[in-house]
C-alpha cells in the first residue's frame, strides 16, 4: 500500500516538475492576443543569446580649430571731445592692429601728426579755429581713413546787451531835465527875493 502511495506521489511530483519546466520555457502569449497553448511538453529552448560584449567606443575628442581671436580693429579717440578755447590741448589715443609706425592722424582742427610707433599723443588745436565739428582721422598705411572720430569746437557767445554810449548826444537826457529844473528853481527863488525886497521897500 505504501509503495503505491509513494509511487503516486512521485509521479505527481514529476508531473508537477515537468509542467513547471514547460511553463517556464513557454513563450509569453503574443501581443496579438493569441495565446500559445500551454502544453506540458518539454520545449527545447535555444540558449539565450548573450548580448555581445562590445567595448565602448573610444571617445576621441573631435578635431577642432583653435579658437580664433577676433581681429583687432583700428580705433581713434580724442580727449576732450569738446573744446571751448582756441589752441586747446587734446590727447589723441589710437589702436592699430599692426602698430603705428606709419600711422598718421589728421584733422582740419589740428593739422597732420605722425605717430611713429606711439599710441598716444597730445597736440593743440589751431589758434584760428572756427566753431564747428571737425573729423579727426587715423591713416595706418596711407590709404583710408582706417578710423575716425570727431572734435567739437564751441566758443562762448556774448550774453545781454552792449553798453556803447553815455547819452552825450541825447537832448531828452536827464541832465537836460535836471538843468531845466535848476533854472526853474533859480527863477522862482529870484522872483521871491525881488518880492520880499519890494515888500520891505
Amino acid at each position, binding site marked *: 500500500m505504501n509503495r503505491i502511495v509513494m509511487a503516486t506521489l512521485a509521479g505527481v511530483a514529476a508531473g508537477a516538475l515537468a509542467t513547471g519546466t514547460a511553463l517556464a520555457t513557454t513563450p509569453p502569449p503574443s501581443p496579438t492576443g493569441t495565446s500559445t497553448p500551454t502544453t506540458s511538453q518539454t520545449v527545447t529552448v535555444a540558449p539565450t543569446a548573450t548580448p555581445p560584449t562590445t567595448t565602448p567606443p573610444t571617445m576621441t575628442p573631435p578635431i577642432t580649430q583653435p579658437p580664433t581671436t577676433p581681429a583687432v580693429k583700428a580705433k581713434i579717440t580724442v580727449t576732450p571731445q569738446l573744446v571751448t578755447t582756441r589752441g586747446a590741448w587734446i590727447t589723441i589715443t589710437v589702436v592699430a592692429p599692426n602698430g603705428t609706425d606709419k600711422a598718421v592722424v589728421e584733422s582740419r582742427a589740428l593739422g597732420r601728426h605722425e605717430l611713429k610707433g606711439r599710441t598716444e599723443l597730445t597736440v593743440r588745436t589751431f589758434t*584760428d*579755429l*572756427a*566753431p*564747428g565739428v571737425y573729423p579727426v582721422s587715423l591713416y595706418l598705411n596711407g590709404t583710408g581713413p582706417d578710423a575716425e572720430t570727431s572734435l567739437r569746437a564751441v*566758443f*562762448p*557767445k*556774448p*550774453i*545781454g*546787451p*552792449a*553798453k*556803447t*554810449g*553815455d*547819452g*552825450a*548826444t*541825447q537832448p*531828452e*537826457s*536827464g*541832465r537836460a*531835465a*535836471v538843468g531845466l529844473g535848476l533854472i526853474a528853481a533859480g527863477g522862482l527863488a529870484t522872483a521871491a527875493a525881488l518880492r520880499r525886497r519890494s515888500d520891505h521897500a
Partner: protein
Amino acid sequence: MPQHPAATSAGAPPAAALPRSVPTRLRVPAIGVDAQVVAMGLNPDGTAGEPPLSRPDLVSWFSDGAAPGQIGVSAFYGHVDSRRSGPAVFYRVAQLTPGAAVQVSRRDGRTATFEIYAVERYAKTDFPTDRVYAHTGRSEIRLITCGGTFDPAKGSYRDNIVAFGSLVTPRP
C-alpha cells in the same frame, strides 16, 4: 530773426568763406565810418567787451566769435556817443538801410565785404542774444551800438541797435 535775402529763392548764393584772420579796419561808406578795429573778449559779466569811452573812434571785434569772412557771426561794437566826442563812431548805424556795404580789412591783406540786410532795435531788458549771435551757416556780420532814449538813472541807453549783414565778396 530778420529775413535774410539769401533765404528766399531769389537770393544769390552766399560767397565762399575765408580762413580766419584778425580784422584791422572797418569801413561803412554810407555813414562815413572808417575806423580801426581792436579785438576784445567777454566782460566778466558775459557781455561783449567794447572800446573805452575815452576812445569813441574805435570799433571792437568779439575775438571769440568768427573772424569776418569765416562761417559764423562776426560781431563789431562801437559807441553811439561820448562826452569826449559827442557823436561817436557808430552814431549813424541806425540810419543804415538794406544794401549798404560794410568793408572789413584783415591782417592777411584780404577784405571781406558785407551787405546790410536788416537794421533792428531791441530793448536792452529783452535783448535777443540767440537771435543776434545765432550761427546761420554762412558768413555774417553784426554792427552793434546803443539807441533809443537814455536812462540817466542807469547811465545807459535803453536800447541796442543791431545791423545785420552777410558776406558778398571776399577779395584776395
